[in-house]
C-alpha cells in the first residue's frame, strides 16, 4: 500500500474543499452586503480574496508535485487532475464575489430602484448549486452532479428575465440607468458563478465515468 501517497491525495482534496468553502463564504458575504447594505462585509470580501488566491497556488503546487513524483494513474489521476481544474473555477468564483462586493460598495447608501427579489432568489439557487456540487464531489455522486449542472438553465433564464426587466425600467426612466446597470452586472456575475459550478460538476462526472461531459449542460 502506498500510504503516504493516498494521504497526499486526500490532503489535496481536503485543501480544495477548504478553498471551496472559502469561495462560498465570499459569495455569501458579498450578497449579504448588497441585500442588507452592510459595506464593511463587502470590504472583507475584497480583503479576503488574496487568501483564496494563495490557496489556489498552494494546491496547484501540491498537485504538480504529486503528478511529477507519484505518477498517479486511473481514478487517482482523474481525481487529482480534476482538482487541478476545479481550483481555477473556485478562484474565479472568488473573483466574481469580489466584483459583487465592489458593486455593493459603489451602490453604497443609495436606495434601491426596486425591491430586490429576483437577485436574492438567483443567489439562493447558485449557492445551493455550489454546496451540492461539493457534496457530490465528496460522495462521488454522479446523479447529484448531473442534477446540479442541469440547474444552470434555471439560472440562465433568471438572468435573462432580470435583464429584460431592468432594461424595461431604464426605457421608462433613464435616471435609474446607473444602478440598473450595476444590478444587471450582479445578475451576470451570479450567472457566471453558476457556469463555474457547472464546470465543477462536469469534472465530478469525469472522475466517476472517465467521460468528459463538457458543453453538455
Amino acid at each position, binding site marked *: *500500500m502506498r500510504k503516504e501517497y*493516498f494521504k497526499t491525495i486526500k490532503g489535496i482534496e481536503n485543501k480544495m474543499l477548504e478553498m471551496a468553502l472559502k469561495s462560498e463564504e465570499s459569495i455569501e458575504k458579498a450578497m449579504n452586503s448588497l441585500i442588507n447594505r452592510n459595506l464593511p462585509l463587502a470590504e472583507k470580501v475584497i480583503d479576503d480574496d488574496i487568501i483564496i488566491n494563495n490557496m489556489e497556488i498552494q494546491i496547484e503546487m501540491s498537485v504538480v508535485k504529486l503528478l511529477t513524483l507519484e505518477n498517479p*494513474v*486511473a*481514478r487517482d489521476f*482523474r481525481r487529482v487532475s480534476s482538482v487541478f481544474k476545479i481550483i481555477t473555477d473556485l478562484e474565479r468564483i472568488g473573483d466574481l464575489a469580489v466584483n459583487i462586493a465592489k458593486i455593493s460598495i459603489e451602490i453604497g447608501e443609495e436606495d434601491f430602484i426596486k425591491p430586490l427579489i429576483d437577485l436574492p432568489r438567483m443567489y439562493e439557487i447558485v449557492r445551493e448549486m455550489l454546496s451540492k456540487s461539493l457534496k457530490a464531489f465528496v460522495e462521488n455522486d454522479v446523479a447529484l452532479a448531473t442534477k446540479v449542472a442541469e440547474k444552470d438553465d434555471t439560472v440562465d433564464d433568471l438572468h435573462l428575465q432580470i435583464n429584460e426587466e431592468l432594461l424595461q425600467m431604464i426605457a421608462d426612466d433613464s435616471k435609474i440607468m446607473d444602478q440598473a446597470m450595476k444590478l444587471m452586472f450582479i445578475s451576470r456575475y451570479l450567472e457566471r458563478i453558476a457556469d463555474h459550478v457547472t464546470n465543477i460538476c462536469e469534472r465530478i462526472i469525469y472522475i466517476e465515468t472517465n467521460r468528459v461531459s463538457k458543453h453538455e449542460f
Partner: protein
Amino acid sequence: MKTEAIVFDVKKLNLWYGENHALKDIEFKIMKNEITAIIGPSGCGKSTFVKTLNRMTDNVSIARTEGEVLYHGRNIFDEKLRVEELRTKVGMVFQKPNPFPKSIFENVVYGPRIHGIKDKKVLMEIAERSLKHAALWDEVKDRLNDNAYGLSGGQQQRLCIARCLAVEPEVILMDEPTSALDPIATNKIEDLIEDLKKDYTIVIVTHSMQQAARISDKTAFFLMGDLIEVDSTDVIFTNPRDQKTEDYITGRFG
C-alpha cells in the same frame, strides 16, 4: 480482427509446476507489430506465460501444460514441431544481460553460425545489420573483436538484443529487460523497443508500470495465474474495467 495479424492465439492455456497451478485458462491474442506489456505482482505467472510462448518451460521438468498456443495457427505443443525452429522465430531477451564469454562479433553471429552460415562476409553483414538494428553499431564498430564482457550493462543488453535479431525472429520476448539497467541505458532500450516494433512483435514482462504505460500498445494484467484484463494500454492506465487491475496499478494492493 484480421487473422494474419494474430501472431499468437492462446486458447485455454493451463500450466502446472507440480501441484502449483501457475497459469489458469489463459485466453490471449498477441497481434503483429504490437508491443504487449505483461504486468502483475511477483509470482502471478507473467514470466511463466512469456516463457511458454517459445517453450522455455520445456526446460522445467515438473512443468505440465494443457490447452493450445497457436503460433500462426499452429499449436506450438505439437510433437512434430521442432522447438529450435520455434525459438528461431520467437527469440528471448532476459532480465540480466547474458552475453557469451566471446567477442562482440562472435556473440552476434552465434545463432547464424549454428544455422550453418560460414561465409565470413555474410556473417559480417549480419553482425552489422543486427548491431545497427539494436542501436549498438556506432558504439562497437571499431572493437568488434573485443570481449563482450568489456561492455557496459546497457551495451551488453543491446548486444543480447542484437544476438536475438541476428537469426531474424518474428517475435521478441523480453523478461524485464531493463530491470538491471540504469535510467539512461533503460531509455536507450526503450527507444530501441519502439524502433523494433516496425519489424517485430514484442512481448515484454515488466515490473515498471510506467515502462508499460510508456512503451506498450496493449497491457495485460496477471494475478495469481489468472489473466485478469488485457486491453489497449491507455485504457488499462486511465480506466481499467476490473477493480483488481485498478487496485494494482494505483498501488492499493497488499
